[in-house]
Each structure stands twice: as structure tokens, then as C-alpha cells.
């Protein structure tokens, strides 16, 4: 089998620091034999969650736009990498908009109870968070983690790791960072290897 890896770029800014870091991760995953695809969230036609809770009745979202086929693809992937720069101490509105739309999956699990991920399923599905921040503060990513954790939990993915680099203003961008791109590439290779190892023939 080929490990399916989907990378979601939540930055409004094309080919910026975060997307470049995601590219390095996907390059590593590709090199290790993964089947890699990248989604640019800002080019997707979708609206944020309306909070209508209609999904609490049937487990279906009533907003029929391009977010729904993307969720189908994420659910079929073995590995998902969600990437967002830090804006105002959190993920971008675009990525948060997508995460909020996963409410219908959450409703299937916890309200309708038609969906259940076994521990084995979760162990075989790995999620990574990729992020960059201009600020040097050590805590600059902390407020992003709870929403990312919630997203991976909802979607049945184990929160495998973070690929994060702060202080972009000092490094003059991700290409000036001494280690981040290499580590992202290595992480891509590593996670595909780990997932492959979970499927002995």
C-alpha cells in the first residue's frame, strides 16, 4: 500500500513560511513513498460553520460546499498535516473556519453515535501540526494546540507531532532558519515509515 498523506495549507499567503515548511514535510513524505496531495485552503470555496447545530439531528452538514469533499478526503488519508501561521496568537481564520466545519463529524461521534474510531484506527492515522510565527516567544503556539487537538480527535487521527518554528522575523523567513526545513523533511519521511510499519504486508 501507499501511505496517503494530505497537507492542508491554511495560510492566506501563497508560498510563505508556513506553506514552505509544509512543502518540505510533503517532500519528505513523498520521498519515503507516500502518496502526497496538498490543499490550498484559501482557494477552496467554503464558508465557516454557522453554529446552527442542524448536524446534531442527522449527522449531516447542511452547508453544501467544498469543505465536505475535503473532509471525505481527510477521512480517507493515513496522515494529515494541517498548516497555519500564527496570527494574533492563534491559527488563521481560514483554518479555524475549516476546523469548525468538522462539527458534523463530531456530532456523528458524540450525539448521533453512528461513528466510532477504534484505538487501532487512531493509532494508524497520524496528524501533524505545521506552523510558523514571527514572534520569538516560546508560548506563541500554545493557544493553537487546543483547536488542533480537537480537530485530530474529531477526525480519528493520533496527534503525532508538531513541526513548528518561531522567530521568523529574526531568521528573515523560514529559508533562513538553521534547521526547520530539514527537520520537516525528515519528519515527513519518518511518519510515512512509521505508518508503513504498522501494516506488515
Amino acid at each position, binding site marked *: 500500500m501507499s501511505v496517503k498523506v494530505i497537507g492542508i495549507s491554511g*495560510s*492566506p*499567503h501563497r508560498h*510563505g513560511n508556513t506553506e514552505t515548511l509544509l512543502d518540505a514535510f510533503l517532500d519528505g513524505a513523498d520521498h519515503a513513498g507516500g502518496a502526497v496531495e496538498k490543499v490550498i485552503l484559501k482557494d477552496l470555496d467554503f464558508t*465557516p*460553520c*454557522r*453554529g*446552527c*447545530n442542524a448536524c446534531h439531528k442527522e449527522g449531516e452538514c447542511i452547508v453544501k460546499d467544498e469543505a465536505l469533499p475535503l473532509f471525505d478526503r481527510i477521512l480517507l488519508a493515513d496522515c494529515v498535516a494541517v498548516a497555519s*501561521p500564527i*496570527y*494574533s*496568537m*492563534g*491559527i*488563521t*481564520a*481560514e483554518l*479555524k*473556519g475549516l*476546523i*469548525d466545519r*468538522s*462539527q458534523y463529524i*463530531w456530532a456523528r461521534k458524540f450525539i448521533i453515535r453512528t461513528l466510532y474510531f477504534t484505538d487501532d484506527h487512531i493509532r494508524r492515522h497520524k496528524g501533524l501540526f505545521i506552523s510558523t510565527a514571527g514572534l520569538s516567544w516560546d*508560548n506563541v503556539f*500554545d*493557544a*493553537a*494546540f*487546543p*483547536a488542533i*487537538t*480537537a*480537530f485530530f480527535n*474529531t477526525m480519528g487521527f493520533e496527534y503525532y507531532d508538531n513541526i513548528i518554528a518561531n522567530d521568523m522575523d529574526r531568521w528573515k523567513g523560514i529559508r533562513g532558519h538553521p534547521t526547520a526545513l530539514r527537520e520537516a523533511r525528515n519528519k515527513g519521511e519518518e511518519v510515512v515509515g512509521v505508518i508503513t510499519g504498522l501494516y506488515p504486508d
Partner: protein
Amino acid sequence: MPIKVLAFAGSPRRHGNSETLLDWVLAAMQKEDDVAIDKVVLVDANVNPCRGCNACETLNKCIQRDGMDVIHDKIIDADVIILAAPIFCMGICSQAKALIDRFQVFRSRKFVLKLPVVPPERKGKRLGVFLSTAGQSWDHVFQGAIPSVKCFFHVIDVRDRDIQYLMINGVDEKGAIMKHPTAQEDAERLAREVIADIRVRLAE
């Protein structure tokens, strides 16, 4: 001059729990003398997300022309700024996050261009209030939202010690907050305290 209160209803759901909490605060403020309230419903306000272009770092204004044009001036004029927004998926709802991110223009003004956001004589004479609701009853459910809310207020010259919080967890379905034992009373008390506080500061 009346006390100017600018309030954002940040939820995509109209008249839900966080907006009800806001309406309780605003109704109590309205009962005080000389208070002018401006409530902005964010889903109707046409505020697009930040594009991350950083143009505001040189232009001192945003290159996007949308609902923020009006909100920008209201933010500067207001004495009390209130943000009400629910927690979705352990963070502030994306609609409110879009507004917060558009405050980058104030951040650029303050920290990059080193220009005043409000005139020096108004410093310390602005108060912020964050109102939130969450379906989950976990104590930590608001923690992911607070750092972004602090950014929202800090860049518009509302100091950390001048932000008040009222966050109610365990309310999910529309109207659930009506059954909360203390939320309305807490909201009304907060409203009276904030107006009393700003009135003293503005008189100084």
C-alpha cells in the same frame, strides 16, 4: 459626551448563548445615565479575514475595502469595547478570529510604525470586555481563545489589567444560557461595574 460602548456579537448564530450574554450586558449598560451603545453583528458586518500581506506595516492602513473601514473608526472612538463570541472546537469561532486578525493594522501602527492608536490623553481610559460561552463544561475550554483576545485588546490600547472576562461553559443548545443560575446576574453586575469604572476614568 456620552460613554461610547462598541459591542461585537461574534457568533454566526443569531440570538444564541453568547449574544444573549452580550444583550444582558448591553441592557444593563443602557439603564445607566449617558451611555451610547453601538452593537455590531459580525456575520452581517462584511469583515473578511486578514490576507497576511503585511502591507499595513508600511501603509498604516489595510488594503482591503470592506466592513472594517467603518469598524476601524468606531474602534478608535469607543470608550468600552466588548467582544462576545462562542467557543467552537476549543477555540474562538472563526468569524471572531477573522475580526481579531484584521486588527493587524492597529498592531502595525503601534509596534512597527510606532504611531499612537488613540491620542495620549485617552490612554488608560479605555476598557475591554470579553464575553464567551462554550458547550463543553471543561474549565479549560476558554484557554485557547484568551491569548488571541488579549492581542485584540492590547493592539487597540486596552491594557491587560483593563480587560474584564465573563465566560460561561456548559451551555450548548440555543437558549441554554437562560437556565444558567448566575449568568444574567453576573452580566448585569459586570455591566454596572464597567460603566462606573469608565465614568470615573473619563472624569479624571
